[in-house]
């Protein structure tokens, strides 16, 4: 489907550029290239080059952890303790005996090797939120995680990317991993976003434009006044969904918003990395944020974007949570819409703050009361519903408006159920009316 308005002006700045041999590279480097070069102990790297790079952290969750631990036992090694992070989030509190056994394997692995960075039920939350909140993520770092949304930490200027379980085990043992240096695409978003336009709408607009494989294997770099004006939370949403365009990472140059956030939080030192003036980009895409609508991605791909005001679909469930939109800013945006109203009688709304600290803050701010007064169900952090695991699984034919990142076939339940992706304010407005609703239209009523 075509994007709602063609705000893209694309050009190829290097169309007449002459090719140079990789070993005589004279061009500057992008952020991803610089971070990979620094971690591979090289002065420079070029796209497509394969390098062995030292990683700063490797993270696994309860689902991807079990296969990693099994593989790890083959190595006759001990994990590099300070680099290993274990986070229970997908199926905890456990949904059944099998998931309980799986979570137990993580506890046993942590105990066996004395891994301190183990976040269990009641002490953590959704893995990517924890990787950010607990100070593992910082500018210039190279972080891998056995979860595809590991790319979220690009919002803090890190090169972070998803990997598999076996290679997570390998990284725990060796502290290194192979990387193919990606080409980099530059996305420039200028202008002032509309009142209810959030980071979610900006990234959905971009994915709607370039498609779900538009950045396949590439590094996305985000620039422009609209990106700079966004709160860190909205930037995390943008980096988080880079994978939905197929990207390896989605990096935003770090600024004061990031440095302030990291004060009294970050573990160890860090040094921000910025692209060179003459860095080589494969493509440059430009957008005007004032022309980006409040969007919904319809089933079954995140690229199927339509303005929320132009779609009329009845919903059965409204889900607010996840690594994409489960932060305090997201809960505030939803509560602002929901305050003094009630969830439609034919809808169940589920609110899942992404971490313990977000839950506590939402409680202090009275947001949980707003949700509960509106008859929403509020639960502790887990990934459960987002991936159709538990805590909000859809029945046949049901539709969910969701602040999550994927609307694939059967993603949240029955293969004939449907997921519509949107920002938290749209989720709240839709919960009230029982149909997909632009918050602007709700407040006009």
């Amino acid at each position, binding site marked *: 489907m075509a994007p709602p308005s063609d705000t893209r002006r694309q050009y190829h700045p290097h169309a007449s550029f002459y090719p140079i041999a990789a070993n005589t590279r004279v061009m500057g480097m992008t952020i991803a290239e610089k971070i990979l070069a620094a971690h591979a102990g090289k002065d420079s790297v070029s796209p497509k080059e*394969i390098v062995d790079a030292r990683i700063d952290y490797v993270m696994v969750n309860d689902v991807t952890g079990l296969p990693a631990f099994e593989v790890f036992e083959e190595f006759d090694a001990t994990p590099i303790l300070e680099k290993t992070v274990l986070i229970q989030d997908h199926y905890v509190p456990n949904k059944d005996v099998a998931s309980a056994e799986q979570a137990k394997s993580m506890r046993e692995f942590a105990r066996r090797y004395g891994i301190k960075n183990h976040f269990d039920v009641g002490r953590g939350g959704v893995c990517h939120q924890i990787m950010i909140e607990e100070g593992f993520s910082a500018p210039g770092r190279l972080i891998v995680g056995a979860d595809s949304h590991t790319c979220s930490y690009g919002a803090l200027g890190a090169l972070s990317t998803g990997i*598999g379980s076996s290679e997570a085990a*390998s990284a725990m043992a060796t502290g290194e991993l*192979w990387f193919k240096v990606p080409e980099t695409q530059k996305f420039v978003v200028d202008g002032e976003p509309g009142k209810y336009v959030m980071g979610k709408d900006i990234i959905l607009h971009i994915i709607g434009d370039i498609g779900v494989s538009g950045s396949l294997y590439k590094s996305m770099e985000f620039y422009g006044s609209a990106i700079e004006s966004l709160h860190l939370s909205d930037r995390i949403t943008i980096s988080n969904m880079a994978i939905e365009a197929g990207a390896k990472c989605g990096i935003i140059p770090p600024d004061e918003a990031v440095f302030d956030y990291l004060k009294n939080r970050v573990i160890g030192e860090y040094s921000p990395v910025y692209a060179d003036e003459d860095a080589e980009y494969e493509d440059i895409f430009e957008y005007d944020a004032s022309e980006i609508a409040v969007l919904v991605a319809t089933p079954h791909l995140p690229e199927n974007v339509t303005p929320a005001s132009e779609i009329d679909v009845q919903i059965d469930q409204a889900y607010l949570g996840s690594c994409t939109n489960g932060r305090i800013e997201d809960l505030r945006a939803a509560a602002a819409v929901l305050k003094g109203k009630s969830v439609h009688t034919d809808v169940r709304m589920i609110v899942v703050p992404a971490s313990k600290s977000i839950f506590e803050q939402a409680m202090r701010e009275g947001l949980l009361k707003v949700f509960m007064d509106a008859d929403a169900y509020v639960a502790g952090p887990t990934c459960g519903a987002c991936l*159709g695991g538990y805590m909000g699984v859809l029945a046949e034919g049901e539709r969910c408006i969701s602040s999550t990142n994927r609307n694939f*076939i059967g*993603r949240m339940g029955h*293969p004939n159920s449907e997921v519509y992706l949107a920002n938290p304010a749209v989720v709240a407005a839709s919960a009230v009316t029982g149909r997909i609703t632009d918050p602007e239209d709700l407040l006009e009523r």
Partner: protein
Amino acid sequence: MEKYIKGRVWRFSENVDTDQIIPAIYLVTGDKQELAKHAFENVRPDFAKDVSDGDIIVAGPNFGSGSSREHAPRALLGAGIRCVIAPSFARIFYRNSINIGLPLVECDVDAADGDVLAIDFEDGKIVNTNTSAGYTFPSLPEFLVDLLDAGLIENTKRKLTRTG
């Protein structure tokens, strides 16, 4: 890795995501045989029942998109799939497959369900024996050939031995 294989085709379209390959509710084990029982369950319920050892998947672009779950290529290996052919692959799926020894071929092949393909990995050639159409594909970088041959586990052991 075998240099030459011949197998029956399962045809899929574009953007086959890992939720289709193995739904998340089954991600409570890493066992490839167990996972294979539910491969493509939501979108192609006949797959797990009818797939046989040595079969090949031919798909459209962006195969394996979505989650990082290594359970996806493990489910395919467990089901007996010996190669996946697609014009492009999602990057984590690509890494996972190489790491666990499932060969992937980047090639746009015209084949229908049940066709029999002959793949020569050494020469980079594919022949659809039903249509006689031939295709070529570039060989993997040496680094990845070594990784695919040795497997990630062996590769990591060697690295650990070298660094002591």
